[in-house]
């Protein structure tokens, strides 16, 4: 086992005995974490676990350039600790969450309020940051929105049309996902993992399955890993295509909106060709995959995929050729690269700020150790960049699938899962279509979950939406929000 300062190092998709993670006084853990973040590490997760009637904080960091993760933990404690957020804003939502769940107070946190807790049955009650002045007005949107979309509350401070500040209050979708995992896994756990965020079924299911396999010290057969990689890219294609269509719809460019709405369904149907469900439910299981992609089926999939990719290229082409579309996207909803790094954006939103962050490339696990997708980056941080990265990723995922479908791994698609090791911590990162999906499991003395932490990419990225709105006209809120298209339920858990 390798340690680095107070951290134990491990690669993605592996586990480590709890006893081998050194426990430090919390102030030292905060200090060391701050030092590593300043050196360019990234905070993947910061959460607490109950221990001896108190709680300890666990930090999971990523060193992207070194393809390595680091895990650190504090000694159990209660009450206040020095806040990490003061120096490193990427910790702000994590510290609020830890405070809400375990009562550990990040002393000095500038905006300490619940993340999702019930507060008189509606999370948006309570104080919002307010701008005052004769010209300033406040706009409240949600929880129920105008479209067919999940609920969340947005509170804007505006001067005329211009948004000075946006505060986002979520929690409406809270289903108690993490609570329900304690003592598990249970018979319903797998389907709960598939619906943590319903449009990211494959990524969350793969992260969960990988954690289970890592805890047992086993690995799914190669064929299953290949199949998971194929399904993950199909999920990306469906969502990116749907988003391009939705962005086109928001700027009233109907040809692309109409075409992409339909092509998105074509991609979903390809996932259904593999497993019967358009969202990939019932495919990934700890130990492997429940369905196979036999050669004739793979050939059919490839043929239909190529048709859909041709249609997509055409529909996306119309959109980029239209000056009216480009001018609505450029310099709107900008998150600057320095801000993006500071708040810890992940996934396509980070890549649209020029940050090279992609788990498939930085922390390859499963099939991505053998075959990688080139990382798509665009520097401008605006809606244009987020649309551009999507369109580049459609090309690259498409190309990747066309190659991989011709080069399947042979062998079994399922192997029996070995029992979960007791007192062990496992980490799994998967690059879902929005970004990094992080699952961390900690087992108790008999190999049941003592704590299970899920970090959906939306947990990092909602802060990006709030920043993107600053200085933007409030009428551009729908398109800014759409350009991120974050998950509410993945955040609320």
């Amino acid at each position: 086992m390798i340690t680095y300062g107070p951290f134990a190092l491990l690669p993605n998709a592996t586990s480590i005995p709890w006893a081998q993670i050194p426990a430090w006084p919390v102030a030292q853990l905060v200090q060391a974490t701050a030092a590593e973040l300043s050196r360019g590490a990234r905070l993947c997760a910061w959460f607490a676990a109950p221990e001896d009637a108190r709680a300890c904080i666990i930090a999971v960091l990523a060193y992207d350039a070194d393809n390595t993760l680091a895990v650190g933990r504090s000694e159990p404690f209660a009450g206040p600790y020095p806040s990490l957020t003061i120096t490193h804003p990427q910790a702000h939502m994590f510290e609020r969450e830890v405070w809400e769940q375990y009562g550990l107070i990040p002393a000095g946190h500038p905006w300490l309020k619940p993340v999702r807790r019930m507060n008189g049955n509606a999370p948006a009650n309570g104080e919002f940051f307010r701008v005052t002045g004769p010209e300033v007005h406040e706009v409240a949107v949600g929880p129920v929105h105008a479209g067919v979309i999940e609920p969340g509350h947005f509170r804007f401070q505006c001067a005329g049309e211009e948004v000075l500040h946006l505060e986002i209050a979520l929690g409406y979708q809270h289903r108690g996902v993490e609570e329900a995992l304690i003592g598990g896994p249970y018979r319903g756990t797998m389907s709960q993992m598939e619906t943590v965020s319903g449009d990211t079924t494959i990524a969350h299911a793969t992260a969960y399955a990988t954690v289970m396999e890592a805890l047992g010290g086993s690995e799914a057969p190669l064929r299953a890993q290949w199949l998971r990689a194929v399904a993950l890219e199909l999920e990306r294609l469906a969502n990116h295509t749907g988003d391009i269509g939705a962005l086109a719809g928001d700027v009233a460019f109907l040809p692309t909106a109409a075409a992409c709405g339909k092509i998105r369904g074509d991609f979903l149907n390809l996932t259904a060709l593999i497993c019967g469900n358009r969202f990939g439910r019932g495919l990934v299981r700890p130990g492997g995959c429940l369905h196979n992609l036999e050669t004739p089926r793979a050939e059919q999939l490839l043929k239909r995929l190529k048709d859909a990719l041709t249609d997509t290229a055409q529909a996306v082409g119309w959109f980029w050729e239209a000056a009216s579309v480009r001018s609505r996207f450029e310099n709107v909803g900008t998150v600057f690269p320095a801000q993006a790094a500071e708040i810890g954006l992940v996934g396509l939103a980070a890549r649209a700020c020029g940050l090279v962050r992609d788990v498939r490339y930085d922390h390859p696990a499963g099939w991505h150790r053998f075959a990688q997708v080139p990382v798509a980056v665009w520097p401008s941080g605006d809606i244009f960049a987020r649309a551009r990265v999507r369109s580049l990723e459609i090309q690259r995922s498409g190309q990747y699938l066309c190659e991989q479908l011709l080069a399947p791994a042979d062998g079994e698609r399922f192997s029996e899962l070995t029992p979960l090791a007791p007192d062990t911590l496992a980490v799994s990162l998967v690059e879902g279509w929005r970004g990094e999906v992080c699952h961390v499991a900690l087992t108790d003395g008999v190999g049941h979950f003592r704590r299970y932490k899920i970090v959906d990419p939306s947990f990092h990225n909602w802060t990006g939406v709030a920043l993107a709105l600053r200085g933007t006209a409030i009428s551009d809120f729908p398109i800014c929000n759409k350009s991120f298209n974050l998950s509410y339920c993945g955040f609320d858990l």
Partner: protein
Amino acid sequence: MYVLDTIAHRLKRGCETMAYPDGPAPALPDRHGGALRVDADKCVEDCNACVPICPTQAIFRPEGKSVALDLGRCIFCAACVEVCPSKAITQTGDYRMAARRREDLIMGEPEKEQVRLAVALDEKLRKLFGRSLRLRQVSAGGCAACEADTNVLGTIGWDLGRFGIQFVASPRHADGLLVTGAVSKNMVIALQKAYAAVATPKVVIAVGACAIAGGPFIGNSQILNGADPIVPVDLYIPGCPPHPLTILDGLLRLLGRLEEHRSNGKH
């Protein structure tokens, strides 16, 4: 791109709306399996294999009684179909499974081997909503999959607008609610308010296993196990998520529009 190019592209793609319901329904994916059917009289005595394997507690076998499967709770994982030694639970491949009453989704007893499909609204409501139904969608603890496959009905392939059904931006403009999600405690007030804001008479449609009974999260302390405890549901559409075809069938069934289209098809 110029306006004429745009028009030319659209013309080239032609009409992409499916023929259904005048023509045949599009095929479900072959591994989908469709609605389940339960022939409880085929059950092996004292067999209980399907009950513990179900992830959402959809299957019951009270002592001395025959097995019953609640399609409202079902997430269609087919684990029970595989484990059943006597083929008492089978897949029908049928996309139709929407029901008007909760008990119509419980299958097993003789005469009740399958879902009792929804009947249309009464004459008065059909007159009001039959040709124009405006719905306000409320996601209350949904995972975005039911929402996505409801949204899909608005795309050119399905074109829900041709039936006069439309999703609107305010409950004040709506004739009813379409609810998705297990109904998180944190959404109770919002759901109640949205329901109250719809003018009477109104309908409520529960889409997906979550909105019917809690879905994969059934029994969690933070949810209410579906919309029923908060709003009176008029139509239940099972699935996780239901296939768009299943949702469309349910909506048309509720409005009594399927007969009309069937007769049109013959002309």
